[in-house]
């Protein structure tokens, strides 16, 4: 193993044995579970799947925790001569993502037990679903571990395919199927880019191992290859304009799947970008500026769209795009820090990004789970048909509220901690002397603040419309609070979120450790310069606590003063109008209408209605429809695909449905191969 000798923490023999043992255990557990899932009664399927995911999560987390403490765990599979050695390595970065994947998958699978209860009579569907879920979880973990380009692509593909099949759980609905196919196609565009990048490196260096990137980036220009990987991984992560699969796939999938997809699968795109960054050798500054610019635009675009949509799962999907933008801002800052040689910026940028990866996986899965709880009860995703659910589903409402505040970056929750780090990074970046960088950073500062502002608007709208007021339309079934197995995973996530919010020191130290070994010892000595900053950031929990104390004191004073005073319940003041009804409440649509109007150039609104005719004195009942389109999808992507389909029409004669011609194609092909070989055109 010549190229491992340079690493600091070469594993001893028994360490490798231990890792091999754990991985084998996880494989065999998975195989046993898959067989068991096929033959078990429907009742136990979900429990078997859940225990398998938990077992796999524990087995892989055991190794990841070791890696977070700085010992790189690695294992080398000796494969055949073409594949070469396949290194399976868990370093700090992999470990961080593996732990996030494991946590979200475990909460997802437990939540799924309750969520899929209504489907207990469709046994085959459930076996298929749970087998896929187990495979999906394992493939995500393996994506983080494999450091061999081919093996990585295989794991990546297994992940994409299994998640695609999970998305189309409701495959009898054409919309769901359409979303699944859209996802499938876009994921393969992503794979194409990745493959091109990997093959490029292979031809330059002759090795399939990830370590070959070091050699490549040492010898060649860094920009183009990085951009190819940024596009490839960016499609998975959802940077604009490559995001258009997200708003289709997430609403279509069952909620525990969308929670896991939005929580972690998009983060594996971020993982890939981080992985490539760890090999970069030059051109940090320009790449940082590119990433930063794209990220700000992604953030603003994502949240603007989230603000106007009425389908609450679609809204959450757009909000994921926004958060990917925020993470990207951190990555851009970190790259700029590397370019400027600023240690503090390096830690703030990458540290903020990594912490936000964790935070977003927490509150986004929480939001998807609580939104899924609402969907399970009311069977609609249109928030404008709902209202007043806080009375029937108080626990779900509070969980959603916590998620909404955290995702808006409001203190005292965890989102604020990572956003605070990023803001500090932006301000720290202002210390450079380059005017173009300063301008970019100040614009980013404004952009990040406007993202925060719109997310307050988005989530007050969503929470207010779904849970507050009174119901806008009578529902077929009276909604009720969901089962415990759906609530407990959410409590677990909230506990985790609070731990990030109030013990940021622990998480920050872990990340700093990770970042010390992230890029090869360029900055390793420098983390001491960051100590003052870390101190300041970790104190933020004290201020949050103080705020909570102030709220508590005010509440007690209020309780004391109000005690014994009269307290009446009356109808809402209708501003002297005496016959209000529930349909007259402000809807989500009207709440964000003015925003939609101002940003009309980006938020494409399509209305369908018929005007009153000139002589129409007594108008009939009529319909008015309005919905928003995704700007990039509507204006560019469908334009391109439309033309592609048009061009493809000319080749329709090939697929004519006649078996005779298909046989004929085969014969032509074989004869062609034969003659070409005989004539030695082909060798």
């Amino acid at each position, binding site marked *: 193993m010549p190229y491992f000798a340079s690493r600091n923490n070469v594993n001893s023999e028994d360490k490798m044995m231990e890792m091999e043992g754990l991985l084998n255990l996880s494989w065999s557990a998975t195989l046993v579970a898959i067989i068991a899932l096929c033959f078990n009664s429907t009742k136990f399927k979900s429990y078997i799947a859940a225990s398998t995911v938990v077992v796999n999560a524990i087995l892989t987390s055991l190794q990841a925790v070791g890696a977070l403490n700085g010992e790189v765990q690695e294992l080398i599979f000796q494969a055949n001569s073409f594949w070469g050695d396949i290194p399976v390595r868990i370093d700090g970065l992999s470990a961080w993502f593996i732990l996030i994947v494991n946590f979200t998958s475990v909460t997802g699978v437990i939540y799924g037990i309750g969520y899929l209860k209504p489907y207990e009579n469709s046994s085959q569907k459930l076996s298929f679903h749970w087998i896929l879920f187990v495979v999906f979880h394992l493939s995500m973990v393996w994506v983080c571990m494999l450091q061999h380009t081919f093996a990585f692509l295989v794991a990546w593909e297994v992940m994409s395919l299994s998640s695609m099949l999970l998305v189309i759980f409701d495959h009898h609905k054409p919309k769901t199927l359409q979303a699944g196919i859209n996802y499938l196609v876009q994921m393969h565009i992503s794979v194409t880019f990745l493959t091109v990048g990997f093959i490029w490196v292979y031809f330059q260096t002759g090795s399939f191992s990830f370590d070959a990137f070091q050699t490549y980036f040492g010898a060649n220009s860094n920009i183009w290859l990085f951009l190819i990987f940024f596009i490839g991984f960016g499609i998975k992560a959802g940077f604009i304009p490559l995001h258009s699969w997200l708003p289709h796939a997430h609403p279509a999938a069952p909620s525990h799947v969308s929670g896991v997809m939005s929580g972690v699968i998009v983060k594996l795109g971020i993982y890939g970008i981080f992985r490539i960054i760890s090999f970069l050798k030059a051109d940090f500054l320009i790449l940082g500026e590119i990433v930063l610019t794209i990220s700000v635009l992604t953030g603003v675009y994502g949240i603007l769209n989230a603000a106007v949509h009425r389908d609450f799962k679609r809204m959450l999907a757009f909000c994921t795009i926004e958060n990917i933008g925020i993470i990207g801002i951190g990555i851009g800052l970190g790259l700029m820090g590397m370019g400027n040689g600023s240690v503090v910026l390096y830690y703030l940028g990458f540290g903020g990004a990594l912490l936000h990866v964790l935070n977003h996986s927490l509150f986004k899965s929480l939001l998807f789970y609580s939104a899924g709880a609402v969907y399970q009860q009311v069977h609609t995703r249109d928030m404008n048909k709902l209202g*007043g659910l*806080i009375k029937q589903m*108080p626990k779900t409402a509070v969980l959603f*509220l916590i998620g909404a505040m955290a995702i*808006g*970056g*409001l*203190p005292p929750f965890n989102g604020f901690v990572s956003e*605070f780090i990023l*803001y*500090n990074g932006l*301000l720290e970046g*202002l*210390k450079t002397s380059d*005017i173009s960088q*300063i301008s970019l*950073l*100040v614009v980013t*500062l*404004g952009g990040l603040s*406007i993202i*925060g*502002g*719109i997310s*307050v*608007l988005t*989530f*007050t709208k969503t929470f*207010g419309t779904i849970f*507050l*007021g009174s119901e806008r339309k009578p529902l077929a079934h009276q909604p009720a609070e969901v089962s415990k197995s759906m609530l407990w995973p959410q409590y677990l996530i909230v506990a985790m979120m609070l731990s990030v919010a109030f013990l940021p020191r622990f998480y920050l130290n872990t990340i700093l450790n990770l970042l010390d070994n992230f890029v090869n010892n360029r900055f390793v000595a420098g983390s001491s310069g960051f100590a003052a900053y870390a101190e*300041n950031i970790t104190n933020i929990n004290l*201020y949050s606590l*103080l*705020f909570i104390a*102030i*709220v508590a004191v*005010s*509440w007690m004073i*209020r309780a004391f*003063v*109000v005690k014994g*005073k*009269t*307290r009446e*319940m*009356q*109808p*809402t003041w*209708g*501003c002297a109008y005496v016959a*209000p009804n*529930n349909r007259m*409440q*402000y*809807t989500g649509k*009207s*709440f964000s209408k*003015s925003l939609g109007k*101002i940003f009309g150039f980006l938020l494409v609104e399509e209305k369908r209605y018929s005007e009153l005719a000139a002589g129409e004195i007594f108008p009939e009942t009529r319909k008015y429809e309005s919905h928003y389109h995704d700007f990039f999808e509507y204006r560019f992507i469908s334009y391109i695909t439309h033309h592609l389909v048009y061009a493809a029409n000319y080749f329709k004669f090939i697929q004519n449905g006649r078996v005779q011609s298909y046989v004929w194609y085969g014969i032509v092909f074989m004869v062609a191969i034969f003659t070409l070989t005989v004539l030695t055109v082909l060798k």
Partner: protein
Amino acid sequence: MLSLILILIAAVFFTGVIIRVKSMSSGRKGPGILQPVFDVVRLFKKGVVYSETTSFIFQIAPTIYFSSVVMVMLVVPFGQSKGVLSFDGDFIFFAYILALGKFFSIISAMDTGSSFEGMGASREALYSMFAEPAFFILMGSLALLTGHTSFHEMFAALHIGSYISYALAILGTFVLMMVAMIENSRMPIDDPKTHLELTMVHEVMILDNSGFDLGLILTAGYLKFAIYGALVVNLFIGMFPYHYSIPMFFVIQFVLASGVGLIESFMARFRMSHNAQFIFVLTSVSLLIFFGALLILGKFV
């Protein structure tokens, strides 16, 4: 600590001064300066009426809104004396805590299920969203100019410049005061004395609040004015000794309050549909400050 006391004193008089100036300029005698305080005390003594539609959100929201304003009051410094809390990046904390308070006041308006209150909530969310970048770019420019990131250090370092920095301070005053107007829903953005619910922003959101809760909301409004006033004062006083700076504090607060009163007496509210654009213009003023900062630092070649 000093800033806290001064803000509290200013908050007692600020709204009273506005009302007094308004009544004097319309030829009336007007209520006493302390009338707003008496109003609040009276509200504190009253019982409450809750809407049947509301949930617990409606009851906790005013407390959280009030606490958020108290919390941000703690980070505002006064010249050379720090606020009760002072740390790097405290202005981010300032903005986000205020946003938290706003979050709750918006959802509490939605909680009543009234179409009017929903409308006010939507406007409040939209306007404060547009005000955000102006504030952040202003603060970012000050951070760039001074090389510090906490309120106290930024303001303390600010006066050691040329005259341009005072020009910037005046632009900064404009931005901060406008942000204060938006936060408090005062004249160019919103008319607190309008009697049509359709044209209200903030007033319509609190239609259903009563008693102690309404008192808290009003008090928070008074405090917010004084807090923004204190920020404006900080732009000018720098490291002046206390026997200049404390009188200056009250003079500037008084000028601001009477300015607000005069604007409200002689100006009409902007058209609701143009408000958003107007608020966005603030961001460009902030950008102007940013360019000024670059100019002072000699970054333009």
